């Protein structure tokens, strides 16, 4: 994540600047989307639509953007949420107890893939903001302060959000929570 985020006036962005934003951030948006979607082609669609929406949005945007990356991730996340509103979430199989101490180092790729799919399915069952906190904290390695700024919350509220997200995940993954 960028160390300093100067305020950007979206209406002042030149064509060149927007092309550079695409170059710089589209790989990150792809990763962000893929981790939730688990499908390369759909993740590419998400990247395209996110930047397309971004272009349309900045034409009418009055307020400056302080963190373009966070802004794009939020748009991508909304896209994913929309996507799963139109089709069912991937199944969260409950026939296997996933204790992390036993399975945190899966030997085979197949087993690893299965666990990945289950973690993804569990993550998608959390409320949107909790999903964002988990992604940004543990997969993008952002600090609490950075996540707080991105979500427009206080760092304390972000910590509480993370705590609730981890509890929910623990129930879903390890303590055989209910499949919603």
């Amino acid at each position, binding site marked *: 994540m960028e160390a300093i985020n100067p305020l950007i006036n979206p209406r002042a962005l030149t064509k060149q600047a927007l092309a550079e934003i*695409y170059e710089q951030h589209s790989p990150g948006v792809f990763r962000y989307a893929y*981790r939730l979607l688990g499908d*390369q082609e759909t993740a590419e669609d998400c990247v395209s639509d996110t930047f*397309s929406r971004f272009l349309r949005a900045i034409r009418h945007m009055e307020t400056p953007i302080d963190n373009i990356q966070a802004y794009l991730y939020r748009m991508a996340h909304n896209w994913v949420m929309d996507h799963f509103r139109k089709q069912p979430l991937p199944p969260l199989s409950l026939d296997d107890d996933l204790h992390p101490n036993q399975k945190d180092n899966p030997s085979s790729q197949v087993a690893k893939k299965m666990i990945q799919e289950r973690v993804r399915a569990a993550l998608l069952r959390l409320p949107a903001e909790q999903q964002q906190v988990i992604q940004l904290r543990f997969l993008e390695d952002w600090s609490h302060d950075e996540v707080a700024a991105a979500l427009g919350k206080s760092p304390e509220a972000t910590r509480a959000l993370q705590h609730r997200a981890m509890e929910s995940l623990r129930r879903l993954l390890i303590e055989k929570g209910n499949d919603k």
Partner: protein
Amino acid sequence: MNTNNQHDYDSGLVKLIQLLRETPERDAQVVESRKEQFLSELEDLFAEQPAEAVSGLRRLFLPRKNPSRQVLRPRLAFSALLAALLLAVFLFGGAGVTVYAAQSALPGDSLYAVKSRLERTRLSLTANDYQLASIQLSLAHVRLDEIEGLIREKRFRQVSETTRQFESHLAAAIEAMRRLAEKDPERASQIANQITLVLNRYTQVLSKMLADLPLEVKTEVEDTISNSPVLRKVSESNENANGNENENEARQENENEASNDNQNDNDNANENEARNENLNDNGKSQDDTKSLKDFSFIGFVESMSAQEWRISGIRVAVNAATRIDANIKAGDRVEVKGQYISGQTAQASEIRLRKTDRQENTNDRQTQGNENDNGANENERQNENRSGNQNENVNQNQNDNSNDNDKDDTNDNDKDDSNDNDND
């Protein structure tokens, strides 16, 4: 990375979450096509701004006698475009595919406007002369591909305009090379080499094209060619080349600037003769295909594999018969000689290390002199003399561009207006 609080949680749970960290490598072709799609949208976005300004002015100064009609026109124009795009999406199966499909569109195809817009975006986002020249040259190759495609499909009517566009790209590349020569002669020399290759291929395509064209279109294309500043200069330079072949070498961009005046003085006297000679040569050059297919250039090795080397942006095929100096590695300056196979693949017959600029220039002149002696073909003389043509080419290019922009603005506006309508 801030992991202060991660140990507050079950570290096993964090490890499970982090299994999602790794993501697959993206398909380079998809990435490129999606990027082009974005750049196309970006182009649309910025094309809208002047349109809005104009309509604002119109509102200020023109009474709106029939407002409904003003709205109707762009709607109609857009609905035609939309129908074409929808058909393309239907045919090719997806929005992203539209841009991808546009890459292979020929002049006159419904998707050709998309292709042209992508190209303009590429050019408008290029600030440095080296890249600009490279892109202009790659677009020149694309135009040649299109000319070949049009002839293959017997769509002769568009050949003339595409030929004009080819020359416009070439002239722009030469102009960029001229500017580059002042700052970075090394890279200008690489561009000069690439121009040599484009001109070689152009000559081949021309000779084949004129042989294949039906008589009624042939005259029109011949007119385009004979009025072309690029070719006219090239053919005029051929006259000069008879007297002083070696002095007009392609890589001496700086020196040739000074000789423009002299060449212009000769223009009128030589024009008719030069054109005739050029066309006649093209007409009969079917017999000269062997000599036309030869190429030679000097460049820097960028990558090497068993089948193909990339030298200063040019892909060159190698095989067991290619004589290659020992110890060549990426970054080395080399001289490549070879022949075109089926018009497009550059097959190297030898690749030699070239040490210094001075040596290169000396050897180069010698090489080209020999080639002229042996092949006596027009093509190589054209290449040698292109640097003298810069001024007139530039003017032509500027005119061409402004025409293009006018046309394109209209299209873009139509599309943008209707986008708005669509959203409403």
